[in-house]
């Protein structure tokens, strides 16, 4: 083991008066990563470094349409490609409909493993081809012939919610239903009364595009049938048990039949949380009784792996002349793309994060999880929060500019403090925003007013 290097940064213990000094043996010192030696010697084993004898390769035929009815699927030519050993359609998937978050009670199962009579986004898989080589699998997948009738595509979140928009989802709405409601809602105080009492009302809209994680290692797995009939799944999933449970449910086998070997991920960032490759590889390994690899090409990683959702956020604030924000209304549209995956959860997280770390007496939040004919979006680093913070803090800067106020003073005035009741009816505790802003101002040499210097998170708000 590499020796622990001497402490490089002294700790300001004043912030931790109740901690024992002995608790600080790691913080502030340099400790080598446990996996670093394997990384620099090339000995870390990623999933693809497993090379079982007789490995087969699985590739899928993907639709070229945004939204279409499937009239027929012809796999005759695919089966005739030399080296192709199996061709799978939705009929080969024991439980074809799923949604990954059903493990925590999210409904309905809105996504097919392989498309049945419709495709909802460009790149949706329809047929899986299993072959002796990657080349033969690609060749076979390319020879699948699908006859379509194109349907009108919905490619914008507000268009999807407009009256008369084509309904693209089987459940009958182009939005996820939260306990009977068309969006995830937060209601606190009376936002209209707050606007009426305000000196200014500011409303601005913020938007973001989808963001692809682009890990250097593409999504993939190798499934190896075991002598006792179980399946060993070598995967780069970020969520081994999520993968195990969802895969078992899809293939209709007991959880104990599957073993996931994972934990080594060549870049994930949330992009390897969905369960995209393991179910088909397990079915193919079962059908052929041979090891099967299903890995995305770089093109597939860019085109069909779930990106961070595009978001559109409208923030309307009622503000007093002194900078106090008395009302905040947020309308969020999350573009889930064609299927739910983790977006219903991400949208709830966004609703929980607004109106930001500020104490505002009147708050109204509508967070819509919207379906469109775009690539399904899902988890990525703080999804549901990151874009919201961009919008919230941009809003704070713009308000400060409109009022000709220091942007830090505006934030200090509205910053939550211990004891404040937040819009979600939780009493704030352990807050530290005021101290963080004061320290940040010091570090960059930003002047603060004398009374702002005296503020603290533990001083109760007046009135």
């Amino acid at each position, binding site marked *: 083991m590499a020796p622990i290097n001497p402490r490089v940064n002294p700790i300001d213990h004043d912030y931790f008066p109740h901690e024992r000094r002995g608790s600080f043996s790691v913080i502030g010192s340099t400790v080598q*990563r446990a996996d670093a030696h394997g990384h620099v010697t090339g000995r870390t084993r990623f999933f693809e470094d497993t090379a079982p004898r007789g490995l087969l390769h699985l590739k899928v035929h993907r639709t070229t349409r945004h939204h279409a009815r499937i009239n027929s699927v012809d796999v005759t030519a695919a089966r005739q490609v030399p080296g192709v050993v199996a061709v799978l359609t939705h009929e080969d998937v024991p439980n074809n409909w799923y949604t990954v978050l059903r493990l925590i009670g999210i409904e309905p199962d809105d996504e097919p493993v392989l498309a049945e009579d419709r495709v909802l986004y460009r790149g949706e898989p329809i047929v899986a081809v299993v072959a002796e080589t990657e080349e033969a699998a690609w060749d076979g997948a390319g020879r699948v012939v699908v006859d379509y009738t194109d349907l009108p595509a919905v490619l914008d979140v507000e268009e999807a919610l407009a009256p008369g928009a084509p309904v693209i989802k089987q459940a009958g709405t182009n939005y996820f239903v939260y306990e009977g409601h068309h969006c995830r809602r937060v209601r606190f105080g009376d936002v209209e009364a707050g606007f009426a009492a305000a000196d200014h009302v500011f409303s601005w809209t913020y938007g973001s595009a989808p963001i692809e994680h682009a890990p250097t290692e593409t999504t993939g797995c190798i499934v190896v049938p075991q002598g006792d009939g179980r399946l060993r799944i070598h995967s780069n999933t970020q969520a081994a048990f999520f993968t195990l449970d969802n895969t078992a449910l899809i293939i209709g086998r007991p959880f104990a039949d599957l073993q996931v070997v994972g934990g080594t991920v060549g*870049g994930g960032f949330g992009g390897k949380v969905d369960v995209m490759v393991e179910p088909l590889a397990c079915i193919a390994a079962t059908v052929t009784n041979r090891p099967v690899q299903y890995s995305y090409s770089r093109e597939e990683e860019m085109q069909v792996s779930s990106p961070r959702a595009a978001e559109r956020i409208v923030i309307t604030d009622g503000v007093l002349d002194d900078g106090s924000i008395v009302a905040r209304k947020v309308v969020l549209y999350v573009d889930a793309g064609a299927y739910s995956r983790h977006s219903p959860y991400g949208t709830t997280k966004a609703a929980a994060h607004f109106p930001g770390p500020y104490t505002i007496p009147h708050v109204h939040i509508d967070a819509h999880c919207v379906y469109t004919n775009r690539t399904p979006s899902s988890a990525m680093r703080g999804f549901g929060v990151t874009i919201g913070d961009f919008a919230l803090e941009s809003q704070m800067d713009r308000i400060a500019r409109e009022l000709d106020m220091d942007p830090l003073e505006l934030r200090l005035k509205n910053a939550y403090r211990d004891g404040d009741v937040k819009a979600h009816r939780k009493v704030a505790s352990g807050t530290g925003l005021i101290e963080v802003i004061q320290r940040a101002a010091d570090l960059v040499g930003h002047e603060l007013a004398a009374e702002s210097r005296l503020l603290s998170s533990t001083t109760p708000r007046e009135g």
Partner: protein
Amino acid sequence: MPSQIVTLTVNGSPQELIAHPSTTLLRALRENLGLTGTKRGCAQGACGTCTVLLDGEPVVSCLVPVVTVDGAEVTTVEGLADADGGLSPLQQAFLDNFAQQCGFCTPGMLMTSCALLRRTPAPTRDEVDEGLSGNVCRCTGYEPIVAAVLDAAGRTSAEVGS
């Protein structure tokens, strides 16, 4: 076209393998020789993850048909350490500077850096930036990697000087 026998010297050892004309050097190293330290990133020559040294020069091994380099000398990440497992100054500098997170781009970064330092033993910051510009990292940002290469250059020159 039929497969053919290819002879290589890999990390100092003579190797013989049977390869189809479409077999890449990357696949030959990983699947024929079991040297899985070299990673597949994009398989289209864009990310630098699969970089190895071919007769001392860095190449993206996913774009090299192995039958075209019969007789060549190849160095992979497995060939950087001493025979007894002692890390090279470059590997040690990557450790000490935390120049890796997920580790998937690390072998390619090491091989590109190794070639850079052989060509330019005392590179400037700009030369390191330029030298690594063909290698993608998605986790750490590039600062610790650049720092590691500059650190390694210092260690190597100190060794030579002593």
